[in-house]
Each structure stands twice: as structure tokens, then as C-alpha cells.
């Protein structure tokens, strides 16, 4: 009986390929990719002599990083840090305040079509450019310093937070929304009673994540003149003070770590 069954039914099974379902095409594409890789590697032109000369300078940087100097430039570092942290917090708060209404407007299950399109437009605009490009633009408009940085970070936070908030609202459990609507609740009441409880933990999590991103970005946009610790770092590197630069990098890592740990703690608490 058992033998008969194994004769009738196959005993091996392989998951069917998801893409490139045709065997011949699959092999052709794989071989093509391999040939391309080999040719591409051959076009890379490395000047080994320059690598050798550069090693020396690289080693100096590593040395500086291993012996960080917090004291010599401490005033500059402290100033840059305060600026960066101020920029981070204010831009995150401003970003959250503006992106909540935009996020609600960009959720298809809550907003009428014209509002939806307008809010999606704002989000797309904010997301189309990288922070540095916006920072260059705003530095040109508002001059060097942290105000341009604040505007840059607030503007980019809007795109990030509203988009993810809108997507989260659209994924809300529709039966809870239906139940609140069935009681005769108005639009604001539906938002307050059915949507807010469902998206709040995620909104808190996203805001903390954005705080984290904004701090890191504040270091980057400082290089193009938007103030903060990035400007201090840039100056230190320009002066070949790798020990001070190392100190700044270590401080950045430490702050990102602190934000990371505290945000995961807060997220667990709001769940």
C-alpha cells in the first residue's frame, strides 16, 4: 500500500522561481550579470602609489581618533553641540506639529480627494530633495547658521513623518472606525476615538526615530554652513586637528546611542 502511494505521487518538490520563470532566460540573465561584473571590475583604475602615500595620512587620522582631544577645542565643541541639539529638538517639534495635520489629510480613508492630493503634493515636495540640497538652498536664502539648519530639518521631517503617519492611518482597523461612525460620531470624534488610539504608539516611535535622524543630519548639514556640530567638525578637519575631530565623532556616537536606547524604552512604555 505504502509503495503504491510513493509510485503515484512525486517525492520531491522545489519552490517555483518567482522571477525569470523561463529556464533559458534565467541562465542567460545570470551569465550576462557575471560577464558584466567581470568587465566592470576591470575598468576600476587604482593608483597603488597614491594609496601608499595616503596610508600615512589615514594613519594620522586613526591616531587622532584613538587619542581624542576633548579639551583644546572644548568651547567650540560645546557651542556646536548646543546648537545642534537645539536645532534637533526645535525642528523635530515643529516637524511633528506640522506633519500631523498633513498626515491626516494625506490618508485616503479620512480626507476628501482635493485635500488628499494637496497633502500628498506637500509630502512629495518635501521628500524629493536630500537634506543637503535643501540646506544649501536655505543657507543661501537665510544666511549661515543654525536657523537655516532648523528650517531644513523641520521641512524634511514633514515629508518623513506625514508620509508614514498617513500610511499608518490608512492601515487602521476599519471595523473600529466603522463602530465609532455608527454611534453618530462626527469627523473629529472619529479621528480622536478611532484613529488616534490606533496610530499613537507608532507616531511616538516615528517621532523619536526622527529626533535621532535629525541629530545625525544636523551634523551633516553643518558642513554646508547650516551651523551646529557639523560646522565644528568641518573646521577641525580643515585644520588637520584629527584629535579634536575624533572627539567630536565620539560625542556624536554617544548621543545617538543615548537617543536610541531611550527611544526604545519610551516606545515599549507607550505600546
Amino acid at each position, binding site marked *: 500500500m505504502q509503495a503504491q502511494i510513493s509510485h503515484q505521487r512525486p517525492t520531491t518538490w522545489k519552490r517555483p522561481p518567482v522571477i525569470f520563470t523561463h529556464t533559458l532566460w534565467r541562465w542567460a540573465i545570470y551569465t550576462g550579470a557575471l560577464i558584466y561584473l567581470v568587465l566592470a571590475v576591470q575598468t576600476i583604475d587604482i593608483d597603488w602609489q597614491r594609496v601608499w602615500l595616503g596610508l600615512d595620512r589615514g594613519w594620522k587620522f586613526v591616531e587622532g581618533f584613538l587619542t581624542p582631544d576633548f579639551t583644546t577645542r572644548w568651547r567650540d565643541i560645546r557651542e556646536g553641540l548646543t546648537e545642534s541639539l537645539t536645532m534637533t529638538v526645535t525642528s523635530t517639534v515643529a516637524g511633528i506639529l506640522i506633519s500631523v495635520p498633513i498626515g491626516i489629510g494625506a490618508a485616503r480613508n479620512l480626507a476628501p480627494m482635493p485635500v488628499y492630493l494637496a497633502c500628498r503634493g506637500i509630502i512629495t515636495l518635501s521628500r524629493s530633495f536630500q537634506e543637503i540640497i535643501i540646506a544649501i538652498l536655505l543657507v543661501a536664502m537665510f544666511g549661515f547658521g543654525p536657523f537655516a539648519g532648523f528650517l531644513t530639518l523641520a521641512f524634511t521631517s514633514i515629508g518623513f513623518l506625514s508620509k508614514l503617519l498617513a500610511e499608518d492611518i490608512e492601515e487602521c*482597523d476599519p*471595523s*473600529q472606525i*466603522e*463602530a*465609532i*461612525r*455608527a*454611534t*453618530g*460620531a*462626527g469627523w*473629529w*470624534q472619529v479621528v*480622536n*476615538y*478611532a484613529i488616534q*488610539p*490606533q496610530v*499613537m*504608539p507608532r507616531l511616538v516611535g516615528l517621532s523619536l526615530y526622527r529626533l535621532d535622524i535629525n541629530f545625525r543630519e544636523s551634523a551633516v548639514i553643518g558642513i554646508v554652513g547650516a551651523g551646529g556640530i557639523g560646522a565644528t567638525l568641518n573646521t577641525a578637519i580643515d585644520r588637520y586637528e584629527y584629535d579634536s575631530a575624533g572627539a567630536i565623532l565620539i560625542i556624536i556616537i554617544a548621543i545617538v546611542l543615548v537617543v536610541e536606547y531611550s527611544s526604545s524604552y519610551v516606545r515599549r512604555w507607550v505600546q
Partner: protein
Amino acid sequence: MLKLDKLSKTYATGDTALRQVTFEVTAGQVVGLIGPSGAGKSTLIRCINRLVEPSEGTITLGDTNLARLKGRALRRARRRIGMIFQEYALVERLTVMENVLSGRLGYVPAWRSFLRRYSPEDVSQAFSLLEKVGLSDYFNKRADALSGGQRQRVGIARALEQNPELLLVDEPTASLDPKTSRQIMRLIGSACRERNLPAIINIHDVMLAQQFTDRIIGLRAGEVVFDGSPRALTDQVLTRIFGDEDWTRMRGEEPDSEQTRTPTVDLAEGV
């Protein structure tokens, strides 16, 4: 009193969910709506409180035609109709008390509901309803901390908190065990008798429907194919509603002639 006249619903996809449904429900009458999946039971009760837009026909509750209401008038009509849902549809992250009080949303202005400042009468009614459904100690628990049966009790309290003139109940026992199902049905039935409240209960369990309702309406492919007392629900009627099946066996009685079944058929039945 509720009166449906030639109510039809065709979805945008072209599927006809309801065809010319006409019936009346008098005060205090508990109507069981039975029918196979996809017969339009859910669509029918959602047309009544306009969670689904009816295509044609009128729905009269008291003196109001619900089918053509808009905006504020619609919300005022909805608050007169309590609804109990299949998967409870409680707002999971709100407390039991907030869920029950959300039954008052149609009556209170948005700022009051936002600050959770309900009138003393609303609050004391909520406490008395929680006591009635046997959850008086649970008012500060979060809804997602409750078991299925407890959640459905909160759902009942929320619907009754509206002081409704009509109760719509959508598969109240679909995800509950047989004993809890009976307790829930008994609770809904006694609430209706006490308040002389008419109710329409979607239910696919024919035995529960017969046991707990005053009248049965059978729906098949969007049409009323049976309307009468639960006692008149014979095998022929069940076949007319659901199609051919061995109804005697379903009721747990021994069929007259025991058929010998092949094992393969039994396997397929279990799926």
C-alpha cells in the same frame, strides 16, 4: 418601528447585494436574519445605519427616511441606532469606560468627548450598563485585555449607551464558543425585551437564531425567501435559503435512513 421598502443595493463592481427587500419590524421584535455567506446580510444591516449607501428604496425609522440623509442629519439618525459587531470592533487601546462612553459621541460636542468630560447622567448610565453586562470591575481595563465574551459585552454596553431606538447586530457570536454565544444572545434578547427595543440580528447559526429570536427572515442572493416564525423553519425552508443539505443531521437527530459514506467524502467534510 422600522420599515424597509424595496431596498436595493448594487455595488460599484456591479454585484447586486440586495434586491427589493421589503419588511417591517415592530417595537420590541427581535428578528434573526439568516442566509448563506454572501447573501447580503451584512450589507442589509449596514444600509440601515448607512455605513453602506443603499442604491434604491426607503428605510423609515419612526418618521425619518434614513436612505437620503446627509451630514449632521445622518449623524443624528445614526445615534438612534445601536450596532453590535462581529469581531466586537472595540477600540483596542481605549479603556472599557471610554468604549462604553463612545456610545454618547453622537450626543456630545467634539471638545467634550476630546476631554472625556461626559455628563454625570452619561457616566452613571455607563456604570449601570457595565454592571448589567457583568463587567462592573473592569471599567479601567484596556479593551484589548479582555476575553472575547467580555469584549462583546462591552460592545453591547456601548450600543445600549446610545439609548437606541433600534439595535443592529452583525454576527454577534461568530468568534465565540457555544456557551458564551448563548450568554451573549440571552443578554441581547433581555435588553431588547426590557427596553421594548426592536433588533435585527445577522446570524449564521440557525439553531441559535431559532432559540433566541421572535421572527426569522431568510435571505438568499439578496432576496427575502422566507419571513416567518422560528417554528416555521422546516427542512424545506432551510433548503430554500441555504441550498441542499442533510438538515436533520445538522440538528443532531438521527436521520431515518443511515447512509454509508465513503471515507474520502468524510475527509472533505472536515475541511
